[in-house]
């Protein structure tokens, strides 16, 4: 979790494709790369803090949620059930459904992490959230192997999320409709940036089409929140069954 894997990273240069390491400059670099998004995360955390106050949560409850759970969608979903007869089973079911995507996301990081020991692998995904996962994986596809990118960007978002929540619960009364200020589209915009800001690859056209259709179908007919997993699985499956020559083995 600390630093100093650099030397080993150098020694293993021959297999640059599979070796991962972690050092302080990498963490710092990840932190800086995530700063623009972290600024928006503060605003988003603020929206959560405000909503929490409006739902009658104590300040410490909101802060503890943001610190330990660190996931906007499940925290917002939990607010609706936060009353004296809070149903824990329903809460757990909804949260599991929301978090199925994180299973796929950490699975996608596995090729990067697989040379580490199990304890280190588990530590690396501690602060994995949607946006820093997307950014770090994009860097990985461009040849980055320093896990500080993942960890540092996670630290930036985590800190921003906690800070935003703190500001929100402290000055909560002032803002009543976060959507009027465009706060609810931050995640949407960020993901679109991740998808189209790099080099969208043509081989992804079919998987993305399948993902869109599967997600919309699941959104329509399946219980809430499962559409993300369905879309992800559909996209992956289409990429596997596509003819080999069209599937661009020269990835990035």
């Amino acid at each position, binding site marked *: 979790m600390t630093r100093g894997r650099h030397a080993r990273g150098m020694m293993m240069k021959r297999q640059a494709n599979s070796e991962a390491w972690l050092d302080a400059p990498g963490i710092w670099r990840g932190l800086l790369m995530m700063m*623009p*998004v972290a600024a*928006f995360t503060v605003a988003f955390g603020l929206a959560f803090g405000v909503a929490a106050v409006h*739902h*009658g*949560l104590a300040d410490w*409850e909101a802060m503890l*949620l943001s610190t*330990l*759970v660190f996931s906007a969608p*499940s925290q917002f979903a939990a607010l609706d059930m*936060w*009353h004296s007869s*809070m149903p*824990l089973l329903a*809460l*757990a079911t909804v*949260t*599991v459904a929301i*978090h199925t995507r*994180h*299973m*796929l*996301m*950490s*699975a*996608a990081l*596995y*090729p990067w992490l*697989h040379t580490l020991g199990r304890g280190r*692998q*588990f530590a690396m*995904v501690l602060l994995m959230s949607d946006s820093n996962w997307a950014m770090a994986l994009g860097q990985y596809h461009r040849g980055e192997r320093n896990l500080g990118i993942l960890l540092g960007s996670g630290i930036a978002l985590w800190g921003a999320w906690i800070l935003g929540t703190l500001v929100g619960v402290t000055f909560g009364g002032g803002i009543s409709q976060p*959507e009027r*200020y*465009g706060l*609810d*589209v931050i*995640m*949407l*915009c*960020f993901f*679109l*940036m*991740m*998808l*189209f*800001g790099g080099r969208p690859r043509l081989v992804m056209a079919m998987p*993305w089409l399948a*993902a869109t259709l*599967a*997600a919309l179908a699941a*959104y329509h007919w399946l219980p809430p929140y499962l559409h993300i*997993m369905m*879309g992800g699985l559909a*996209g*992956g499956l289409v*990429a*596997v069954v596509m003819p080999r020559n069209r*599937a661009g083995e020269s990835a990035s």
Partner: protein
Amino acid sequence: MNSPSLWHALLAIGLLAAIAYGSRVLGLLVMSRVPLGPKVQRFVDAMSTSVLIAIVAPLIVYGDGGARLAALATTLVAILWRSPLLAIGLGMVAAAAWRW
């Protein structure tokens, strides 16, 4: 407003935290059982961006005009200038302006 008792709230927060972290660990555990061949690589590669597609598709299709305008503005800026700050900022401004 009726609030849950202290233990009830702590239990709920613990439950959420365990599920949130458990799902991240579970993905790694599943993958450690699967041999990393080219097919699995291709699956994981396409799956990772497809997850993002699956998140944004319903937001755009079932979102209001503000969300759609934000999506359009962000995508155009992302493709043309590749600046995250500008793309996300303009997206937010577009949504706020539409709803004014």
